[in-house]
């Protein structure tokens, strides 16, 4: 399964030691795997994942990681992946992002957004516009749902100036291990470096939208989820509308998910969600799903952040890539992932962030600012 990747290139000629003298970055723990891979692609640096220090069961590559590496192989040209015999040392020498039009079957260990987020960050810097059909799980407890991606991530991408061509089409929903869910993600390429990002002072939330989805469960359950959520939210806001979507069957296990998106009056969109999959469902579980999603949106509301916690990583990466002027973004409390990413960005790109507390005391926030590395799309063709 993994052997397909092994393209060992041997530079026999001692004069081409250039290639060997290149600095590789070695990382020891399975932390932010996706984002470290992304950083390696953006900087063109060789990265070595060393999992030998991990616990016994996670020493090998996980199926989702293999699937991600396959995906990387698809959208790049000239990528060299090497595994040592014990499969504990993975060397990735990223190639050139080419994008294009293809279908990829994702591992069902993780939701589709796991892969979509990876693609969304790479797609603007490809040689050709990306048009990819992914099949897999549309709602997974570990990842955000595809609805959140469609409404929040895409709107962020559009804010960067990618326009209406950037879109996600949910063709089929499925949360079973069969991985029959299908989405079509299209994204145009970016020709210039990102303009410095200056997103500050989010205003109050204007409206809330959402999608409740259930399968192998009676359709009124979705409405119940919606009602639960509305009951809490209507105390704060009138403009709430949550759609329901029901899949009669086709999955092995019953599943529900609720995604909520809040739009502020100056156009920022925050999204949260919660999904559940299991054998036995009861009222309690349903109420906890809706409660979790709803409370999460309230949490996003009270923080003075322009993006939700899940998209902190996106923003930080974009800031580091933007043109060499000052970018400032107001974020909520930083997650461990974000902190790790900030450290990695410094190691890979040399971009350091300046982080201060936000001005509004009642609403926790931090002001992150940095001077970008002016990353341009050098993969495109110039005529």
């Amino acid at each position, binding site marked *: 399964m993994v052997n397909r990747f092994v393209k060992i290139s041997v530079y026999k000629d001692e004069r081409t030691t250039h290639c060997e003298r290149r600095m590789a970055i070695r990382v020891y723990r399975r932390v932010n795997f996706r984002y470290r891979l992304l950083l390696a692609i953006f900087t063109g640096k060789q990265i070595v994942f060393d999992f030998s220090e991990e616990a016994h069961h996670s020493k090998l590559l996980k199926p989702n990681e293999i699937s991600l590496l396959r995906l990387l192989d698809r959208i790049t040209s000239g990528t060299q992946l090497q595994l040592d015999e014990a499969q504990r040392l993975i060397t990735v020498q990223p190639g050139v992002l080419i994008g294009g039009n293809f279908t990829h079957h994702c591992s069902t260990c993780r939701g589709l957004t796991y892969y979509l987020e990876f693609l969304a960050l790479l797609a603007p810097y490809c040689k050709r516009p990306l048009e990819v059909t992914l099949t897999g799980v549309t709602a997974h407890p570990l990842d955000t749902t595809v609805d959140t991606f469609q*409404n929040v991530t895409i709107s962020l991408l559009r804010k960067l100036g990618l326009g209406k061509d950037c879109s996600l089409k949910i063709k089929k929903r499925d949360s079973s291990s069969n991985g029959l869910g299908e989405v079509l993600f299209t994204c145009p390429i970016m020709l210039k470096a990102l303009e410095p990002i200056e997103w500050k002072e989010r205003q109050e939330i204007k409206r809330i939208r959402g*999608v409740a989805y259930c399968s192998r469960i009676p359709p009124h359950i979705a409405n119940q989820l919606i009602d639960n959520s509305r009951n809490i939210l209507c105390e704060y806001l009138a403009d709430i509308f949550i759609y329901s979507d029901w899949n009669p069957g086709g999955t092995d296990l019953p599943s529900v998910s609720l995604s909520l998106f809040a739009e502020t009056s100056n156009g920022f969109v925050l999204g949260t969600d919660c999904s559940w999959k299991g054998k036995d469902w009861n009222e309690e579980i349903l109420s906890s799903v809706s409660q979790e999603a709803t409370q999460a949106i309230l949490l996003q509301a009270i923080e003075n952040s322009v993006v939700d916690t899940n998209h902190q990583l996106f923003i930080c990466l974009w800031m580091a890539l933007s043109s060499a002027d000052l970018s400032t973004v107001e974020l909520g409390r930083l997650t461990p992932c974000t902190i790790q990413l900030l*450290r990695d960005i410094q190691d890979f790109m040399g971009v350091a962030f300046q982080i201060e507390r936000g001005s509004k005391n009642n609403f926790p926030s931090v002001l992150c600012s940095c001077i970008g590395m002016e990353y341009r799309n050098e993969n495109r063709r110039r005529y």
Partner: protein
Amino acid sequence: MEATSVPHHKPKTGKKAALKKASAKAERKLRSLGLEQVSHPNVPKKEKKAVSGPLGMQRKIKASAEKEMLRAHLAVPDRTGGHEAPRVVVVMGPKGVGKSTIIRCLVKHYTKKKVGEIVGPITVASGGKKRLSFLEVDGELPSMIDAAKIADLVLLVIDVSFGFEMETFEFLNICSVHGMPRVIGVLTHLDKIREGKKMKKMKKHMKNRFTNEITQGAKLFCFSGLTVGGEYLKREVQNLARFISVTKFKIITWRNEHGYILVDRLEDKTEESKDDNFGRTVAFFGYLHGTYLRFPRGSNFKMHLPGVGDVTVDDVAQLPDPCPLPYKEDGSSRRRKLSDKERAIHAPMGEISGISYDQDAIYINLPNQTVRLTGNIQPESEGEVMIRDLQQIKSSIDEKLQSGKLEILRQSLVNENSHSEDLSNSTEFLEDDASDIDSQEGCKENSLKEISDNGSEDQLENDAERTRFGLGSKNENERIIGKWKVAKDDLQVDSRPRNLTKWIYDKRLHPDEVCLKDLSSFIPSGSMETDCSRFVVTSQCNLLKDPNLKKRFSNSELVEENEDHSYESSQDDFTDEVSEYSSNDDSDVNKETFSDLSSEDSSPDEDNEDAASADSQEERIMKKTEKKMQFDAAYDAGALDKMSSEEDMSFDEAWKLRLAERESKRKQKLANLDEESRQMMEGFPPGTYLRLQVKDIPEDFMRYFNPFSPLILGAVKIGEEQFCHIRARLKRHRWKKGLLKCSDPLIFSVGWRRFQSIPVYSSEDQNGRNRYLKYTPEHLHCDATFFGPRMALGTGVICFQRLDGPNTSNFRVAASGYISEVNGDFNIVKKLKLVGEPLKVFKNSAFIRGMFHSDLEVSKYLGAKIRTVSGIRGAIKKPLKSPPGAFRATFEDKILMSDIVFLRAWVKVFLESYCVDVQDRLCPPSSEIRHLMKTLRELRVVQQIPIPRNEDSEYRTIDERPEQRYFRPLYMPPSLQATLPFSSKPKLIPAKEKQRLSSLEKEMSAVMDPKERKEQKMFQMLNTIRNERNKKRKMANKARLEVKRKEMEREEAERQQRIDERRKRRYTLRGAAKKRQKIID
């Protein structure tokens, strides 16, 4: 055809001009009196148009707009720091043109100091806020290339007595590829031309050529001669200096994005114990030019040392400026002249300035002649004793201070458990509760006071009990929480860090721990291992009770207000995919979903709204009238005009404004930071004097170090270490002798790097296919694909076949172009024709042999299209059993046994992954550069291998023509004939030939009637007369020509005789002269 009339020049001086002036004056006077001058009746008066035609105006506007657009360039943000870094003035010219003299004169002009030999760059303060670095460059290719990459201003020195030399043009060519700097030409050796007229001509010629080569109006200086002291005239040097000072320097894209150091000093810092053969550690010193130098903190990084390769920088330090700007930024002094003390000079390689700084030491350099050793004399005065004592001190004050222990805050070092080390480190940036009241306030101010309210311990335990769904997330949470607890128990300090940046970037702390300090009621739901960054609420009651929460939502009234403006604008942000759910018509897609939905959605609220609507309507009307009045007032005041002009700002202006805004924001932000975090954020600014310590430099570098060629350390931008295949649009230089052969190695100079690689030339066909080219086209661009380090698109590329070797009269620049694409692999194809011949021919199918060697090969090509020479198309069907490689193919028609069958295929050309740095700095000067590939031709010359000859490829005369072929007449079956239309049927009766008289007709001669007979006779008579006349004329002509011929012959004979006589006379005279000469000799 109408000739375009060019008006004569109007006389400006002399009699005519005076007359014209007088008449014009008179006319004006008349006009002022209200009288019109009567025009001459014969001259038609030019019609004056009151209004020019619509097209004319349009054309005018278009033309001016086009002109403007041609001139326009989008402003580029300047990141080079203006005049902060010394400007590099490269004085370039071949040997013996007087470069050193120019530098010497200029340095003397600026600093009043005399310089001997010019070694390395010389930095001088040229004005209050300006510095110049002079650099001498001769005709060696590596130094020319390096100099072109860093030059801000080029002084091209040309020896007039010799004229232009190849090096000058080569240098200009290199410069134009790497970003054209400003160029000033300097003509020297003018005193060698004695004649005034010749000099004038020469100057004119030089000027013409120079302006052609650079740009119209390029400045050319003439240095008329030398003084007795061997310097140029003072006045002329002053003029040149003046021109240098007013030069406006360009922003060159490459240097706007890459920092670099022009090394003016270097020191071998290798430990003495190490062997000579070991890699050296060398410290490089120099001003930072270009842009900010940024690199990952705490780890070493790569820079490029042209002539060596990529090197690893160990250590970077900022040193005090050795040649400070006379006026500082805030300096209010507006003096016109620099005092002698301020005229600083810095040229450590030339050993001119006395003091040099290192990280930990200051060296005073005394010239040998000034050193007078005092020997061991007992110190006498008090000062002398102090100096002697100072000399004996072994450790500096800094070191003493560091070694001494001083407790500033006793309370900060309370912890002495196993984590004390971590803690004491973290306390550096932790606020101490007891000592600082501010921090306590800061802590209380924050909304996160739940810790104290609930007791964080209980809360965390609650969290742990809480179940999460999903795969093992519960375990994860517990693990994390457990970790937190441990961390929390250990960290007794309750205050939150003030300097978040340091806290976050402190690698000793796990990100979870960092979060802990800043979090209370949330835990991350996904850990870093699952690549997921979400927070989940843990204490719901707190959140819901938070009084601030309600403020974060706009209530319904607010929504109403916002609807007017912000709704429409922000609707675009929500993706329209949600519209799939809405039951609305598809035609309404443009209208965003939420506007529709909100109307649906707001139905329960409508009742309330109706009640309020009556009141609000009146309010709205009030507001509108007020707004209108405001508008009217503003309009009357003309404020609207101003407003519109701001909106109508041209794109260029708006862009410049935006750039300025960004720059000011950046400056403002950085000004508020302390030095360390400022450096962390933006790096070292250009103009700082840096010391870069580089390890593992080959020992040959120090051994063969040549201070006369410029030494650069260029920053390698992130991503430029990556190697991939690069495609460049390339054109062979028209002065380069011969074509460039595909797969012959070529030396590329791109960015800082110079490397040898193997290009494959190709051109793109109309259908997008990249077709392999054996040689570069003669006067066209082509694509060259080679392996190398990745560079930004559009970076200039210049190619050479050799950088070393003897100076030839040939032009050394092989080709130039720019990078157009990078990729992991490129598909370049070559046409391949496989040829076979029929073995056996059936009706439409045939057996073909000779195209392949085996069945396997055939089976790879099953279904491939084939074709005969005559154009009959077909396809490969199936391999035959014997002979091997034969196959069955079908064709659209029956082929002949004599036909040849082709298979046209495209084969991918293999791209070599070969790239080697040109390490000219590791070789002794003027020797061959090692480790470089040779071209095929060079190899043949070296190994004395003749060019291989293929007998078949030779040209020869073709004696035997292909045999004449006869074809059988076409046979058409009768059944087919019957069905054909008449026109296509073969005709049985042959076509009628020209009518001839048959024997019967001959016999049937007509009997003429009398009238006919008479006519016949008449014709006969007339014919006879004519014939007779013609006969006579012919005879006469013949006689006349005979006479004429005879006459001519006679004349010719006479002429010949005359010529002979003349010749004879001449030869006799010549013979006599020769004889005389012999006698004289």
